């Protein structure tokens, strides 16, 4: 398929934009929506990256992914936000400007790293490789730099996206079972984390992880 | 065991009290008094032996055993201490260790006997006794070690034999030093001035006297006779160093007796000339003696 590189490039650029949006926005709701967009976008990657025609299996997986990451997870998170009555603001440890600067740095680093790795993974599209690394980095950064448990879940899901992309472009064919297992895990993970956050917010009044530091030493 | 070998112990038994008497007489003379007769110590001992005894209320048989054991050890010591190069009645390699052991045994017995009375004065005396003894014992061992190194023998008989003959030829310096430390030991072991004043009447300053304060009768007699013997024994060790080279045995023996007399006078002079050290300085005195012997030993090594 000749359109493939172009499409990938589009997904890539929009995906990066969502990342920067995640870094920049101060509103939880916005974060969650950006996450869903990102999820949908990258769920398409396997469909496009497949050079040997579209099998039912690929479509099925892509569909499942879109369903989860685009619809269910955001729904869960939004529900949580209202139920747990969070502040609407994100309260970062690291300011938004700084976060965006980090994004830029991460972008450069990911580019170099991707260039490092690409020879080894020759059949993987370069842009996606870079995107995967970038997503993991951003996800980590969100977890580390944000006070709010919800955003940490968001960060985790961003990493999840990155890994998904990586898997999709490197290991071309993994057994269906594994794929489903991974999806299932992601699914359960979100729910478990959600319940956890719910409990926490009920105990602590709000899921401000900064308060979770009584256990030391 | 020939006649001269027997002569030494017998002489000691007979003359030891006289030795004490001579010291006292000298002191009196220097002080310008007539002083007690030379035979006074004999009379004292004899008188005490005939007296009854008084014991503290809390005492055990140990208080009686002490003087006996002490005297016995000294009697045995007489057998192994050579006199004037004539050799000793009993002589075997390592007998000097036995000598030290005997002294230790006698002292231990005396000290326990003192503690048995439960009187604080005896306790004080015993404490001082063991303190100084603990320092004197290494001094004695080193002095003997030096002699052993000089003569290449480890039995007093041959040591003194060799000293009297060859010793002074090459190791005069070392021998002189050892002699001095023996003199010090003589004063220390027998609690003479400048270490202790046997004639003082202030208990708090005494060492040996206060330790035997509550002994009486025969026990005290044993103690006094024992003290005289100990003076004699260590004196013999000192006098034995004298270079009596190449004279006949009997002549040597008589010279040695003269030497003992001279020693008694010397001690008398020292006691009259010196004041008693403060108790805290006594250890330095003893350690000094040990150092002298050690120095002597080093002289030999280099």
């Amino acid at each position, binding site marked *: 398929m000749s359109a493939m590189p172009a499409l990938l490039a589009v997904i890539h650029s929009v995906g990066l934009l969502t990342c920067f949006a995640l870094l920049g926005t101060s509103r939880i709701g916005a974060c969650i929506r950006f996450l869903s967009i990102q999820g949908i976008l990258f769920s398409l990657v396997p469909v496009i990256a497949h050079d040997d025609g579209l099998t039912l299996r690929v479509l099925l997986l892509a569909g499942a992914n879109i369903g989860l990451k685009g619809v269910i997870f955001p729904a869960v998170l939004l529900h949580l936000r209202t139920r747990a009555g969070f502040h609407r603001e994100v309260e970062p440890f690291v300011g938004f400007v700084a976060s965006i600067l980090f994004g830029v740095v991460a972008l450069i680093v990911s580019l170099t790293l991707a260039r490092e790795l690409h020879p080894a993974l020759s059949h993987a599209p370069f842009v996606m490789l870079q995107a995967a690394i970038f997503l993991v980095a951003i996800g980590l950064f969100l*977890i580390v730099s944000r006070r709010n448990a919800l955003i940490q879940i968001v960060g985790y899901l961003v990493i999840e996206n990155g890994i998904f992309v990586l898997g999709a472009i490197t290991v071309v064919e993994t057994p269906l079972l594994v794929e489903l297992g991974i999806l299932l895990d992601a699914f359960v993970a979100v729910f478990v984390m959600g319940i956890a956050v719910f409990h926490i917010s009920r105990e602590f009044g709000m899921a401000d992880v900064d308060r979770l530091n009584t256990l030391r030493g | 065991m020939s006649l001269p070998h027997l002569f030494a112990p017998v002489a000691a038994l007979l003359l030891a009290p006289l030795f004490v008497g001579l010291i006292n007489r000298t002191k009196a003379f220097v002080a310008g008094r007539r002083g007690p007769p030379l035979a006074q110590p004999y009379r004292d001992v004899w008188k005490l032996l005939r007296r009854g005894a008084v014991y503290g209320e809390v005492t055990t048989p140990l208080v009686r055993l002490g003087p006996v*054991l002490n005297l016995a050890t000294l009697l045995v010591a007489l057998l192994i201490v050579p006199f004037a190069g004539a050799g000793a009645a009993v002589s075997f390699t*390592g007998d000097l260790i036995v000598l030290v052991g005997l002294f230790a045994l006698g002292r231990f017995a005396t000290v326990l006997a003192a503690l048995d009375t439960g009187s604080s004065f005896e306790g004080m005396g015993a404490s001082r006794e063991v303190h100084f003894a*603990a320092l004197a014992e290494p001094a004695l061992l080193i002095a003997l070690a030096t002699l052993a190194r000089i003569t290449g023998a480890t039995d007093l008989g041959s040591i003194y034999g060799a000293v009297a003959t060859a010793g002074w030829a090459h190791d005069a310096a070392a021998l002189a030093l050892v002699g001095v430390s023996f003199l010090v030991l003589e004063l220390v072991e027998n609690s003479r001035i400048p270490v202790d004043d046997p004639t003082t009447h202030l208990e708090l300053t005494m060492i040996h006297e206060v330790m035997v304060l509550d002994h009486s009768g025969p026990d005290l007699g044993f103690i006094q006779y024992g003290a005289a013997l100990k003076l004699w024994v260590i004196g013999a060790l000192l006098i034995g160093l004298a270079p009596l080279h190449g004279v006949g045995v009997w002549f040597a023996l008589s010279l040695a007796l003269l030497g003992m007399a001279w020693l008694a006078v010397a001690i008398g002079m020292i006691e009259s000339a010196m004041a008693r050290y403060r108790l805290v300085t006594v250890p330095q005195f003893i350690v000094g003696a040990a150092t002298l012997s050690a120095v002597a030993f080093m002289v030999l090594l280099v």
Partner: protein
Amino acid sequence: MTALLLSLTVLSLGGVAALVCVARAALAHFLGQAAAIVGSLLGLEAAISVLLAGRPYSISWNWPMPGGGLHVEIDVLSAFFLLPVFGVSALTALYGRSYLANAEPGAASSWLHLNLLTAAMALVVVARDGLLFLLAWEIMALAPFFLVIFDDRRESTRHAAWIYLAATHLGTTFLLVMFVLLANLAGTSDFGGYSAVLRGNSALGSAVFVLALIGFGSKAGIVPAHVWLPEAHPAAPSHASALMSGAMIKVGIYGLVRMLTLLGMPRPWWGWALLAAGATSGVLGVLYALAQHDLKRLLAYHSVENIGIILIGIGIGVLGLAYGHPALVALGFAAGLLHVVNHSIFKGLLFLGAGSVQHAAHTVELEELGGLLRRMPWTGACFLIGSAAIVGLPPLNGFISEFLLIYSGYAGLLLPATVIAAAGLVTLVAMGLISGLAAACFAKAFGTVFLGAPRSGEAEHAHESAPPMLGSMVLLAVLCIAIGLAGPFVVRGLTGVVAAASGLPSTEIGAALDPASGSLAIATALFAVLVVLSALLWMMRGWRLARAGVRRAPVWGCGFRRPTVRMQYTASSFAQPLVTQFRLLIANREAVVAPEGYFPAAASYASDSGDPFLRLLFVPTFRWFRGVASRLNVIQHGHIHIYVLYVAATLIALLAWASL
């Protein structure tokens, strides 16, 4: 050999049985004691038969444990060290049951630890395989832990147990390294293989020697690794202390000697190291003992001193080997090894005596005791004999070994080589100081505890101990005298052991020992004369006094007519001159309120003889280390996002490192 295995089985099973029916105390006590005595007697039989036959028995099985094998052998050396182990064990067992009579019900379980300790010591002595040795060694280290913490309600006891096990474990670490290293190089953990790799390689030899000296030394109680003794011995029940001090620390000496036999030709500096360690331990041990006013602490420090004496002997022997003087070898090793047995006898006796005192007066604090000789004559007499023996007075066993040691010192003096002569002088000075100070210390100990008037109500109402306790003490006392009088034969009898320990032919050893035993024969004769003379004098004064009469009166109080018991010289005041003289080394902490003015107000004196090395070296070190460690807290601050950052950072660091 079967006797030995049988005894090990009996000991272990009996111990377990005692634990199992601990609910029925009487039965448990009976089982434990019976097993201990029977097992020990069996073990003694095995040891003696080997000593008589003179040839070793050996058994080995296959042990699935990789890097180990079950190889045990009783040779003359092992048999010799089995004597104190089983001998002391039997007597302490005889003593222990009455001692524990009115302890709390759970006390019967202590038989398990006591018997396991004996069995483990025996196993250590006969083990010929690195791993087996270590296993036995560790059990031997663990069993006493439970004996030390016997009276666990007291904080001081728990502290003591901690110090004990910590110290012994640190020592074991060095042994672990030593055996693993040897096994690795030899390709086998069997002792037989070690000497092969050690003979050629002198650097390895020195390394192993150092490891052995530290590892075994910490068990034997060499300064500064002695800190556990003064804590553990007072805490444990007295018969356990007797076993630990009488036998267990000797096993450390055994290990050292055994390694020396495997190490082959020693380097001179090994001898010097042993000599230095011995002299230091000896002198410092007795000095610290002087400063004590707790009878069992005092005895514990004397163990340090006697271990020092033993090491001096072995050091002289090693120097003799290194410089090729068989006479020194024979005398040095003979002195050291004989002192091993002697010390286990009189130290066992003294600890049992201390136990009886504690049993009778409920304290071993010297300043609370006094006048016990009239209340407990048997215990007092035994303790007196023990004291005289440990001080090295003729004609008791202590004198024999110290005679040999000083004798070897003089023998060294006569040799032309300056080095040896210097070693000889060191020996003499050390021995002179040690014996003088020891005499002072035991005059103080015996004097304050048994003589004078009782200083407290408990001491006032003290009672004599039960017959079994007296029995074991009397037996030990008799042994002290017997060995003392049989000196010449004993010394000749040592030939085989000394040959085994030094590796020289026994003919050579015998030739070197003969003069010494000859002199001892004469010396013994002299002591006979001494006894006769004393008897005569005694009868003479008795005869005199029968006529002249005896009466009792208050002692001279300098005119003061009402002396009270508090006016007696106390232990502290007795030792004060020496303690002050050596205050630099003893570092005693004193709190003095001196009386002032003509009408002084209350005056007081308190001295705390906490071990200087513990106080000034180990405790500060540990405190410092704890401070350093607690700085780690900063990385465990509880902030989750930083934790995640750790993960990321680790990942990035590794990636960076890997891509280099």
